[in-house]
């Protein structure tokens, strides 16, 4: 396998609080290959967004990367000085946020924001930047882009604004786009369009995508592979078809049981009783053990690491650890 575009190894993110250190991401490891779309799913608070923020280097203090490594095309980026990291943001890793209504600065026109972003990273003239900006807007599906580029964000509808956000994220032609729940805040009718635009434009440019969502439908439609997070730990990761159809981790199974329709979200996990533990009350052993229908003694004692399975799948569950199953 060629070198992955992004490689996250044993990522640990912690929040020091007065009641002790909370571990929000606990030894998370995964790769994203060139041109690949990786879906990242999990309940609220599982650490999906945090993973994105950690990769792009925008963890909110006091949150911090406590250990682990992040590699972008063979270059380690989690230890880069702030100024170098800044040059990577936007230029090599783009990011799309959840709410297009609040992602755009209301006091600047779309043109100003686009041109500023382009010129921050690419040495082009104002005029050239504007030309690119118009083309970009046109590409993300803004009608009459040349005219509307000088409008302010509030002139656009929610869906249109998210297209603008995508244009901004892609303005400097990044290799990786992290899309953090890009459709959650949007009207159902435009969600699919936005995902399509995002997918198409990235495919066109060969950019990889890390698609954070709790919408299994979107994952099923869009992603090549999917990673499932639970309480800051990776439960399972593998090709999207395999994971959806033959979930191995009991948590994933419960999650998948809940996607008969496109609109159903993972937030309502009625199939699995109980709720995800708070970060300061993660049980010993497997974090999922109190809710797991297949729990056994070992799950309560030791934490399972990711276990490699066939087809490039990995799962963190003692059920699949043959050697030690008798402990």
């Amino acid at each position, binding site marked *: 396998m060629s070198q992955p575009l992004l490689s996250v190894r044993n990522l640990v993110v912690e929040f020091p609080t007065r009641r002790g250190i909370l571990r929000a991401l606990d030894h998370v490891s995964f790769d994203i290959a060139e041109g690949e779309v990786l879906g990242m799913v999990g309940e609220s608070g599982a650490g999906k967004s945090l993973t994105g923020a950690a990769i*792009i280097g*925008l963890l909110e203090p006091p949150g911090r990367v406590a250990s682990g490594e992040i590699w972008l095309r063979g270059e380690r980026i989690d230890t880069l000085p702030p100024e170098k990291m*800044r*040059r*990577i*943001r*936007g*230029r090599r890793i*783009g*990011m799309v*946020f959840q*709410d297009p209504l*609040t*992602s*755009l*600065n*209301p*006091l*600047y*026109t779309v043109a100003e924001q686009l041109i*500023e*972003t382009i010129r*921050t*990273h690419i040495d082009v003239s104002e005029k050239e930047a504007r030309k690119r900006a118009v083309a970009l807007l046109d590409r993300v599906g803004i009608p009459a882009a040349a005219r509307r580029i000088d409008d*302010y964000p*509030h*002139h656009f509808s929610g869906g249109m604004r998210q297209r603008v*956000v995508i244009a*901004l*994220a892609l*303005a*400097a032609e990044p290799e990786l786009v992290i899309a953090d729940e890009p459709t959650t805040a949007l009207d159902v009718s435009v969600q699919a369009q936005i995902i399509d635009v995002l997918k198409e434009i990235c495919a066109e440019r060969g950019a990889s995508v890390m698609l954070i969502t709790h919408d299994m439908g979107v994952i099923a439609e869009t992603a090549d592979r999917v990673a499932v997070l639970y309480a800051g730990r990776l439960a399972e990761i593998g090709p999207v078809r395999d994971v959806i159809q033959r979930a191995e981790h009991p948590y994933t199974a419960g999650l998948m049981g809940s996607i008969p329709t496109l609109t159903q979200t993972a937030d309502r996990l009625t199939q699995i009783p109980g709720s995800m533990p708070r970060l300061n009350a993660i049980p010993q052993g497997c974090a999922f053990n109190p809710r797991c229908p297949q729990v056994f003694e070992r799950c309560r004692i030791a934490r399972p690491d990711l276990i490699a399975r066939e087809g490039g799948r990995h799962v963190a569950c003692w059920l699949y650890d043959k050697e030690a199953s008798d402990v």
Partner: protein
Amino acid sequence: MIAFILRRLVQSVIVMLAVALVSFALFRFVGDPIASMVGQEVTLAERAEIREALGLNDPFIVQFWNFIARAATGDFGISYRLQQPVMELILSRLPATLELALVSGILAFAFGVGFGVYTALRRGSWVSGTIMTVSLIGVSLPTFLIGVLLIWVFAVELQWLPSFGRGETVYIGNWWRTGLLTESGRASLILPAITLGLYQMTLIMRLVRAEMLEVLRTDYIKFARARGLSNRAVHFGHALKNTLVPVITITGLQMGSIIAFSIITETVFQWPGVGALFIRSVQFVDVPVMAAYLMLIALVFVVINLIVDLLYYAVDPRLRVDRANAKS
């Protein structure tokens, strides 16, 4: 837009009438102008005569009506005390107050925004903590004491700056007398401007800091960072501009209180402005001057409010559209 301004003007007139009524009514109780107008030898009969001649025996509503009717034409009568037309008196003092207010307003705004931004960006650093704490001294001592202490240190002990007055002044045009064009005029301005601006600076600084912290947490700032914009662009291009929208409103309104607080500063520094004129007029119960001053203050507020609205309009594109939409 025009409709908006018209509506605003009508409101302003109502506000000014209300202020006029209230102030005129209240000042009828401040004291007896005759006592300070005439010497001790004047007999009771003569006092009564003057009272009658001044119309002080008319029913209140008649006095008020006369006042309004004349005020509408810019005629506030003559000062009981200085025997000059009130309008002329106020106009001749106004430049001094406006220059003082403007300079201290600019000082307060510049330092307030600067410190506010700094303390917001460097939250938790000891420099920020020091600035925050020290700036509180400005609002923890009465203005008059700060003024007196500044005089003591910089005028008496160090003899660097003048202790009173405006220094040398020159005329711009017919009536605007400025101290800004002469060296002694500028030197004279420093201590009063600091005294007057300190309080506002602290307020603005705190406001900017709070707003800035608020703005720094918004999605569009995060998104701007995620696009790799430089800190400078994020902080000063995006965050500061959004911070300034509410700050402009409050600062604009503060301009009004700067003018009012100048009463104290002008008294301490013998600054020949309308504030000192007002407080002397209160002591002498110079009703026409007091009433005119309050009308002036009301007018200043009305004008400032209008300017703030227009500024808002210029800074925040959202308002522009809302109104454009509302019209169409």
